[in-house]
């Protein structure tokens, strides 16, 4: 009787440990993906802010305007220095991030040409992680992350102006081996200026990389 109990307890502990281990791995993957995407999105936005399009000189012909753009592109620029200067002058970007993941529906997984690639044609399963662990989000000199619980902060007229950007992440779907992932990200700069993108990621040598990205809409 004693032996049976001991065997049972050992088996129970082993299964629990395996589940715990799996959950831990999923959490680690989720944190890595969220960090990667926050950096990706904000980096691009910083470049957009630091290098605003000059309004066109309407006296010029279209061809001349295009030439001006190409001429400007040819001039080498110290992006990091310019962004640093901008941050010093105007302060860190304040980024509101929804603490809960929004629902990722099956239809979203088949939404763009990215999933037509063989690599992303497998069965993906949505993992049951509901919240972002903000303790695991990396700190940055360029931006500050502020957890948001409202889910629709930009629609709130009083709170809207406290943030430069608002990000929301969907639940993440992984393949069986947890080596590929699909996620949708919603980005809003104002209530009518934002976009939603779907990202297809792959883990290579322990690092997650964006394999394919497609914007789904703009507002």
């Amino acid at each position, binding site marked *: *009787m*004693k032996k049976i*109990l001991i065997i049972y307890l050992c088996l129970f502990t082993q299964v629990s440990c395996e589940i715990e281990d799996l959950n831990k791995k999923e959490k680690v993957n989720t944190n890595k993906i969220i960090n990667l995407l926050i950096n990706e999105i904000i980096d*691009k936005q910083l470049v*957009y*802010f*630091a290098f*605003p*399009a*000059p*309004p*066109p000189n*309407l006296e*010029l012909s*279209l061809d001349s*305007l*295009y030439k001006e*753009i190409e001429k400007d592109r040819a001039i080498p620029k110290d992006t990091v220095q310019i962004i640093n200067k901008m941050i010093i002058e*105007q302060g860190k*970007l304040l980024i509101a991030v929804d603490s809960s993941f*929004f*629902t*990722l*529906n099956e239809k*979203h997984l088949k*939404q763009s040409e990215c999933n037509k690639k063989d690599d992303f044609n497998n069965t993906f399963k949505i993992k049951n992680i509901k919240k972002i662990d903000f303790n695991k989000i990396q700190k940055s000199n360029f931006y500050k992350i502020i957890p948001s619980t409202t*889910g*629709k902060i*930009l*629609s709130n007229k009083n709170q809207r*102006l406290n943030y*430069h*950007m*608002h990000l*929301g992440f*969907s639940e993440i779907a992984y393949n069986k081996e947890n080596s590929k992932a699909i996620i*949708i*990200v*919603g*980005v*809003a*700069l*104002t*209530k*009518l*200026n*934002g*976009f*939603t*993108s*779907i990202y297809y990621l792959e883990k290579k040598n322990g690092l997650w990389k964006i394999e394919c990205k*497609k*914007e*789904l*809409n*703009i*507002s």
Partner: protein
Amino acid sequence: MVIKNIIYSVLLIASFTVTGQIEGLKKKDTDYFIKFDKDEFIFKDPLFENFNTNSNESEIKNFEFGWNSYNNSITYALNNAALLKIARDQSQRKWFAKQKNEIIKPAIEKKLGKSFSNYEHAKNALLSNIEIKNIVINHVPIETKYQNIRHTGFSKQKTHLGKLKLLKIRKEEILAGNINNPEFGAIKINNIPIKNIKTIKELNQLWQHLYNTFCSNTAATHVSNHVYKMLLKIENESKLIDLAVTKKNRYYRNFNEWDQINYMQFLINYEEIKKYSSLPYYIPKLLELSNKFKDTDKANDIEIEKYALNNRDGGHSVFSDEYFDELVEELTRKYNNDAREAYYDALDQIRFLREQALKKLLDNTSASEFGEEITNNLTGKELCIYKKLKELNLFKNTVQKFSKGNYNLTFDYGTECNGSTYGDACTDADDLANGNILIKIISSGQQSLDFAATLLHEAIHAEMYKYVDEHKKGIDPNDRKNVLHYYRYYKAKNENDVATSDAQHQAMQDMYIIPIAEAIRALDGGKFPLEHYKGFAWDGLYSQYEYDAYLDENGQLKTMTKTQFYNYINMMNDVMKSTNFKNNCN
């Protein structure tokens, strides 16, 4: 030690089970009298034959005890028990009668402000009163649903008729020998440009396909339209009220007498109970009561819809299968059950009737509606605001451009833009290759001037997509330098890409701040100077990071500062507080 613990646990569980059983037994004991009156043996016993169990209170005798013989004492004991039951039943009946006639009836009279001759009439009046309120409340979403279906159906019908008319014109052109220079060559029908239709055979195939779609849509829209009309007057449908009251009465009668009066007191306090049994009040006991009578509402949305469908006017459209079936049935009777003859005669008749009806519809389809490619699924206040915008020049220069040509613009509601709920609206150009652009409304804000600005903002996005697409194809020879410059700078693809969003927003800052402000000012009756309305245009654009260079109305390079932006937003808020615009769309 482990074994010992298990034994203790088993004993503990066993002791709970035994205690529970004892508790159950005790409970049964307290129900003794309830069980007693259902005991068939007692009532069949000849000793009770002398008792009239329906006798009046005054006739109830007192307990008696006799000790003459064993049989006598048993008889007294049983008689006493029967007396007890009679007394209890009578007392209960008296109490019920008092509750119904002296308490509940006056309470209903007070609630409804009317007098009733008896409890039954008062009860029915209350049931009717509640069900009328249910109809008033519950028919609204069904009415909205059919309003939308009907609206979409009529929009589709208009498009079908426009296309059928185009095919009719093309047929006349081909028959007249004009094969290569059709008047409306660029317009597509089922993705085929009219200029590519060169034979009557090709045209007939397209016609048949379109005609079938037109028939099924028209038949369905005819039904939805009449269901909608019935829903408009459903609050006065006495037949529906009677049906609901009958069902409610049946529900009432399913309860025992205790629960019947409980149900009545529940109904008398219905509104309050509903209020306090849900958040933010939430009184658990009331919730329990609500749950007990959870099926009380009989005129619910399902029943209302069923009633409207079954009792609508209008019969069937001549383009429907049902109309044909009815015709066959009618002619079968006429031809003494000769079904074959009836069928062929019906076929001839329906062809003639449909031809006449379609001819009439096509005659009323004006040339300006050719190729109408705007599908508007907005309803209520949003639709009202959309209609008000239609008169403005800015709207004519954006949305109205979709009314002709090869692009389809759809306005619709959405709860999300591909999963994300950020922002108030979005423009989806995912299917631009097929000429389709979708504007999705996620939030209509305060359903006032702010929503008008949102519609204009998204309409400008849609128009830019269309312009750049046409420009790429060489259809639009105009160089809108501003738009194309930003597209080149951001390497925009004219898809749902961020670069396109950036380019379009930048172009909007340069070109549309003043037009949007002017449009909103016009909607507001020009109450304030133009400056007050610039916030409506900037509200959706400015991202607070001070990078926003733009060209002002005089073509001068300016930077939108945070201070200036807040200033515009404050002025916008002032306008929103004072505007009467919202009241025009009630």
